[in-house]
Structures are given as structure tokens and as C-alpha cells.
């Protein structure tokens, strides 16, 4: 009975992530439209996009290899795998110990590695350009992200998300400067990882600026649907990862129905707020030139290092 209950929560969470991710991206898109004075297509637009792509046939270049065909499935399944690990609605996840934060970053890196390979598979200049830029950005993001995570896990005394959440939510709420700095750094990292403005613009196909879009330019049909969906899940997961690390209050610690419902409700509120903050950042900034990104990501690294220094000075 206990086991069934755990499996139920696990599956519920994974399904929530898979099916709520397009809504979250739709919400961010809608806010962005509003903030720029445009009419939006509504929260549900991403669902329509995905549904449309699933119906369409796949058109593939003659020289596409198995890597090109395998990558969409891998990208999607890494998202699902991570969704089963991050405490989003409950901390009673039996799969959670199978990966800590460092492993989660590693799993995302595996997905990125394969997307970059798939983009080189066809042999077009756009693909190579996207791959090269993506890997460059990733290599600058990773240290900043790791330092932010280090600050959190030193405070929580663990790299396991469950224990971080438990450590933060038990006891009195303390405002820690180290965590504040780490959260700013993490927000910048999320922008870079999810490919949002100012690092990358998901709504452009201009060769001067595109990164992620350049990599998936050759995809079509259900492959593209899986990749797009996977990217949405990744964005969603990064935001929930941030919530689990920096705003974990409200994630259900017991597994009765009431607390799960409250937890889901609080998570929705947090996501709405987080989405609005991201939109504010996005609208407030212009897309940066590629080689200015070192400054942006350098700032993220500096913030996370400051967080670490504060941790050692104050605690």
C-alpha cells in the first residue's frame, strides 16, 4: 500500500511536469506579449504547436544518421528522468535519491551533448554554428551554476535535493545573504540554460543571433515536437529546481491528499511569480551579442562566488 502510494505520487509528479510545462511556457510567452503591447495567443498556444507537430510527417535529410533520430527521444526522456527526481509537489519521492543536483546537471549536459551532435549530423553551417555557440555558452554557465549549487548544498549540508529542501523548511526561516546571491546567480543561469533573452532568443531565426534554434533547424514532425517539448520541460524543471533550492517552503513533506493539493497550489503560485520575474528580465534587456555573454555569465559566476564567500564569512 505504502509502495503504491509512493509510485502514485511519483507518476503524478512526472505527469504534472510533462503536461504543465507547455502551459508554463505559454504563460511566460503571454506575459511577454502583454508587456510588449502585443496581443497574445493565450496560455494554450504551446499545446497547439506540439499537437500540430505530432500530426505532421517527418522530413529528414538523406545523410541523417541514427544520432539524429535518437536525439529527440533522449532529450525528452532526460527531461522525464529529471522530473522524477526534483521535489516539486512532494518530498516523498522514492526515485529522488537516485540523483543529486550534480547528477541532474550531468543529465541535462548529456541531452545537450546529443543535441549538439545531432545538429552537426546533417552537415549544414547553421547546425555547426548552433552547436559551437551552445557548447561555448554551456561551458561558461556550468561553473556559475555549480558555484550557486555549492552554496546551497553547503548550507543544506547535502547535494541531495530532498535533504536540501528538508534542511531549509525545518526550523525557523533565516534570510541568508549567501543564498540571496546564489539565487541571483541561479536566475541568470536559468536564463542562459533555457535559452531566453538576453542569451538566446527562442522566437528568432536570424543567423546572427540564434543558438538553440540553429541546432534544431533540420528537425520536423514528431522529432521536432519531442525536442520542443523537451526544451519546455527543461525550462520548467530549471525553474522548479530554483524553487526547490531557494523557495522550498510549501513542498509537501507528508503524503496525504490535502497537503499534496496545497503543495500543488503553492507551486502554481510560485511558478506564476517566477514566470513574471523572468519576463521582467527578458523585456528589460535586449539580446546580447554573443561575445558579450562572457560578461553576463561572468556576472553570474561572480554572484555565486560572492554567495560562497558570504557563506564562509557568516556561518
Amino acid at each position, binding site marked *: 500500500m505504502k509502495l503504491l502510494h509512493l509510485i502514485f505520487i511519483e507518476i503524478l509528479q512526472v505527469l504534472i511536469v510533462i503536461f504543465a510545462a507547455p502551459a508554463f511556457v505559454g504563460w511566460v510567452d503571454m506575459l511577454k506579449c502583454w508587456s510588449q503591447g502585443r496581443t497574445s495567443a493565450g496560455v494554450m498556444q504551446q499545446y497547439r504547436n506540439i499537437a500540430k507537430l505530432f500530426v505532421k*510527417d517527418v522530413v*529528414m*535529410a*538523406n*545523410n*541523417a*544518421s541514427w*544520432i539524429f533520430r535518437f536525439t529527440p*527521444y*533522449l532529450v525528452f*526522456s532526460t527531461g*522525464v528522468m529529471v522530473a*522524477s527526481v526534483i521535489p516539486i509537489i512532494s518530498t516523498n519521492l522514492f*526515485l529522488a*535519491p*537516485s*540523483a*543529486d543536483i*550534480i*547528477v541532474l546537471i*550531468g*543529465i541535462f*549536459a*548529456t541531452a*545537450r*551533448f546529443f543535441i549538439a551532435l545531432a545538429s*552537426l*549530423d*546533417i*552537415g*549544414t*553551417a547553421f547546425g*555547426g554554428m548552433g*552547436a*559551437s*555557440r551552445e*557548447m*561555448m555558452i*554551456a*561551458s561558461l554557465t*556550468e*561553473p*556559475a551554476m*555549480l*558555484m550557486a549549487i*555549492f552554496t546551497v548544498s*553547503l548550507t543544506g*549540508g*547535502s*547535494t*541531495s535535493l530532498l*535533504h536540501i529542501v528538508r534542511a531549509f523548511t525545518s526550523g525557523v526561516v533565516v534570510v541568508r545573504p549567501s543564498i540571496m546571491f546564489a539565487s541571483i546567480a541561479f536566475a541568470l543561469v536559468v536564463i542562459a540554460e533555457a535559452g531566453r533573452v538576453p542569451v538566446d532568443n527562442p522566437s528568432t531565426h536570424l543567423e546572427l543571433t540564434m543558438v538553440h534554434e540553429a541546432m534544431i533547424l*533540420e528537425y520536423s514532425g514528431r522529432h521536432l515536437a519531442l525536442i520542443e517539448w523537451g526544451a519546455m520541460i527543461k525550462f520548467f524543471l530549471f525553474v522548479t529546481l530554483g524553487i526547490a533550492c531557494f523557495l522550498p517552503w510549501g513542498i509537501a513533506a507528508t503524503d496525504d491528499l490535502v497537503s499534496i493539493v496545497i503543495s500543488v497550489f503553492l507551486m502554481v503560485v510560485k511558478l506564476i511569480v517566477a514566470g513574471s520575474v523572468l519576463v521582467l528580465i527578458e523585456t528589460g534587456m535586449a539580446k546580447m551579442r*554573443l*561575445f558579450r555573454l562572457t560578461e553576463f555569465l561572468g556576472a553570474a*559566476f561572480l554572484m555565486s*562566488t560572492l554567495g*560562497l*564567500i558570504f557563506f*564562509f564569512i557568516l556561518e
Partner: protein
Amino acid sequence: MISPIELSTFSVVAFIIPILFVILIGNNRRLLICISFSVSALACLINVVSGIMAVAFGKTEHVILPIGLPSLPFHLRLDPLSGFFLFVIGLLSFFVSIYSIGYVSGLAGDKPIKRLIVFYNIFIAAMIMVCLADDALIFLVAWEVMAAASYFLVMFEDGRSENRRAAYLYMVMAHIGAVLILLSFGVMAGFSTGFEGYTFDAMREANLPLKWATVAFLLSFFGFSAKAGVIPMHVWLPEAHPVAPSNVSALMSGVMLKTAIYGIIRITFDIIKVFPWWWGAMALAFGLVSAVMGVLFALMQHDLKKLLAYHSVENIGIILIGIGLSMIFTSFHLPIMAALALIAGLYHTMNHAMFKGLLFMGAGAVINATHERNMDEMGGLIHLMPWTSSFFLVGCISISALPPFNGFVSEWLTFQAFLLSPSMPIPLMKLLIPLGAALLALTGALAAACFVKVYGVIFLGNWRGHNHPVVTEAAWSMRIGMMLTALTCLCLGILPTIIIDLMDSISERLVHAKLSSSSGIYGWMWLTPIDPERASYSGPLVFIGIIAVCAITYFMLHVKPGKVTRVPVWDCGFQKLTPKMQYTAVSFAMPFRRIFGFLFDIKEQVWMSPQQGHCAFPVKTNYYLRVRDRFWGWIYRPIIDIVVLMSRKAGMLQHGRIHMYLIYSFVTIIFLLALL
């Protein structure tokens, strides 16, 4: 039952058999290659067995061989640490020997195959002896035999001056290292008592004052670093690896560099034992610099084997990070943390041996098939070499530290060791050491970028080169060798607990703590160093989870068979898409060159040649790029200049006239007599 050390000693003797074959059936090339490499493979397998036995039983055995100089017999000893290295050396050499059957057969007929077989076997036997040695004499003898054998292997194609130069550079660096190690043993033997002072046992007993211990450590550290390729002693690596045959490169990079790691661990943890924290900090600093600089150098390369050689510098750096952290923790008496860091370093040693061996074997297969070392001339090989490309991909994922393969496990353990650094008593160290973790993260991400480049440029896309060679898949034995190595990479990645439990006997002996009591709590599926509350990783679950979701998604989407239309690549309507327009290794690395370029000596030139008419309509564009190692100009060039200058001055004494030389000897005798 035969004891492990007897097995190993026996295997060393067994390496003579292939050499006998060379003499006996040297003329039948095919038979010779088949039989001699099979025998080498078996001899290597013996060492795998004895290594496992030594590590699993955790016993120490001694043997004294009554050979060597009069009244200075050779002492051999097999303890868990030697056993671990024997296992690594034996396992990779076993795979490489299988691979060699096909690889060496595929070499052109005019190559000196017999020489290759002879030195190949001497080389492996010498590496095994280095790990078994228990006195300074046999250690140095084995060390020098190893260096000499590998020198001849690097000189395999001695017809080209480039190769001779690389081999010469390697020999010089190897000897500088050997002299430093010799001096270090001299210092330690000087403080040990008795006539048998040259044995490691006597050195362990010796009471070294801290000052002399530091001297001995520094000498040995730099001596071994020269062999391991730690920056700034790395210059020989990118020269020697590309010119050696690929099976030899796999062994040199995969396991020969590890004998230097073995030496460092043996001398610091086993012989000197008590040391101040700054030794570890120094090892850590050298490790970090090597890791970051190594991977950046690799990113700049477009010669496949040179690139892999620079990645060896990177990975030796990562191993040194683990060992350095372990030394720091040991000096602060934090045994469990020291054990974690040491196991992280050792596990990476084994992982690097496997995936680097695999990558060099794959590189050998590619180079054999295309006769090309420049990646920018390759492309699209995944269609022509499906097997090799799959195995190579495993190597790429492993070295890029991506889960669920093996490189990730050891980097994860190293990160966990970094996270424990706040328990150290020195505030400055607490602050600085986590920054090292950021550098390690940078290294990992850059390695991933580099291997996207390698794999993408070699195996994906279209053929970029001018010539169109007929490319065929590698021979069967090569495929089997690579497949076994790739499987090992996967197993080490998803089942690390089993191996780490076994490795407890090593850490127990060296730092007096074990991990298994903590790593076993959740069962074999979960890797939980220190404490399951702190961190846990389940390789099997991540692997099965990802594969399962992939499969489910695939089947759900293929309930109704979807149509896949194959079309030519969309060319934006220009109809002039050529393979020349693809990204190359040079263009892929351009953003990195721009960001990290200040670390290198880069010369980049573009010039247009208008044949006729206006310069606004160039007919041809030339691009020239040269990326140089700054260390060469900073350290090596001045030393070479000074040596050349001094020899020129000394050369003025030589005229070639006999009577002048007679006067020299006469003056010398008079001078010496006057002194007396």
C-alpha cells in the same frame, strides 16, 4: 593455490614468449601477429586476475628475487595499491592486445612489425614490474626499461624527421624525470638504516626530518610529473602520442602515464606517510592548472591524436586534483574524507585508462581507414564505420563526464570531495578550494564541447577532405577490442559501487579509512559516499530510467507508423551547398579561441588573392592559423637557448688539432698535481 605475486611474476616472464615467436616464425607475418598478440593478451589477463586477488584479499606479499647486482637482490611486493594498478594495466593491455591483432595486420607491409612486437611486450612487462617493485633499484631499472621501450615504439616510423624529433624530446623529458626520481630515492635511502637502505621497506622505517622529506617529495613529484605530463612538463605528450602507432598511444596514454600517478601515491602515502598540508595544495594546484589548460589546448587542436594527447594532460590533472585533496585531508587527519578523495582519484585513473584507451583505439581505426590525421579533412564516417563510430561515441561521452558513463562517476566523487573541504581548519583554504570545483566544472564542460567537436567533425556531416579514400570498417579483432573497452566504460559507469567496495583495502592501508561501510547502506544500486543524507547517485536507475522512457516514447509514437520522408538537405534555395560549407574543427573552436585566446600564442591571418580585376571580388581566400603553447616560449626556449649557447662556448675548445688536445691533457695533469 598460487599466490597473486607469483602469478604476476610469471606473467612478466610470459611476455618473453612473443619475443621468441619473433625469432622463430618472424617470416610469416600474419601468423606472427596473431600468435604473439594472443599470447600477450593472455599474459595481461593473468595480471588482471592477480590484481583483483590482491585488491580483494587486501594482503601484502613479498618475494625476493636472487637476481640483480651481487648481494643486492630484487625485492618485489604486491599490496592492494600495486594490485589496483596491475589490474588497470592488465585490463587495458588485454583489450589493446586483442585490438592490435587487427591493427598491426592493417599496417603497411614495409613497417617494422617485428620491432613493434618486441618492444610492445617489453613495454607492458616493464610497466608491470614498476608496480611490483619494492626497492629503488628494480623500480628504476623497470622505469628506465619502460621509458626505453616506449622510446623505440614512438620511433616506430623513424623515416620522418618529425617523429625522430618527437621521440628525442620524449627521451629527454623521460630522463629529466628519471634523474629527479633517482635523486629523490637517494635522499630517502640516505636516511634509512643498514645496507638494505635502498628497499622501500627501509625507507618506510626511515625517520626523515621534514626538510629532507620535502626535498624528497618535491624531487619525486616533479620527476613523476614529467612522466605524467603535468603542465608545464607536458610538452612531450602532444609530440610523442601522435607519431606512435595507435595501439601504443592507447597504452602510453592509458596506462603508462598512470605509473607516474602510482609513483606519486606510493612515495607520499606509503613511504613518507606524514606530510604538511601544502604538499597536497601544491598537487591540487598543479592538477587544476593541468586540467583547465589541457582541455583548452585540446580544443585548439585539429590533429586527432594530438587532441587526445592534450586530453591526457587534462585527465592527469583531474586525477591529481583527487590525490591533492586526499593529501590535504590526510594532513588534517580527516581519514574518511581523505579516503573519498583518494578513491575519486584512483577511480578516475581507471576510468581514464579505459576511455582514453578506447578513444586512441578508435582514432587508430579511423586513421587506418582514412590515412588522415587532420580532423578537418574527415566527416560522415558514421555511415561507413558504424561499429567504430558507436564505440568512439561511448569514449566521447565517458571522457566528457556525462552520466551514466564512467567519467561522470569519478568527477562526481571529486565534486563530493570538494564539498567536504569546509571541514578543514584553515579559513583561506576553505574559501579557495571550492573555487577549484568551479574550475573542474569548467573543465568538464569544455571537454564536452571538445568531444562534440571531435565526434561531430569526424563522424557526422559530410566528407570534408580533398581526396576520397575508400573507407572500410575496422577489422574484427579491432572491433572486439574496442567493444570490450566500451562495455567496461559502461559497467564502470553504472556499477561503481561494486568496484569502490573492493577498493576499500587500498584506502584502508594508505589513509586508514574505508568508504564501503557508508557506500553499501542503500545496496549496490546506490553510490553513497560518506553518508546517504549527503549525496547519492544511482547509475543503474538513471541508465534504465532514460532508456525506458526513450523506449516508451518511441513505441507510443510508432503505434501508428509515421512516415519519414528522406530528402536532400535544404539549401535555403541557393542550390550550391558544398561540404566545404560545414563547420570544421577550427571554426567550431572559434568562440573558445576568442574567449580564452589570451592563454595562447595565436597567429591568425586571412588574405585574399584577386587574380584579376578588383580586390572587392577575391578569387581565393587563404586562412592561416597557428596556436602555440606559451609554456614552450616561457620555459623551454630559454633553457634550450642557454644550453646551446654554453655548448657553443665549450665547443671553442675543440679544434680537431691533436697537439692542442695534448696540451689540454698536459695542463690538466699539471693543474691536478698542483692541487694535490
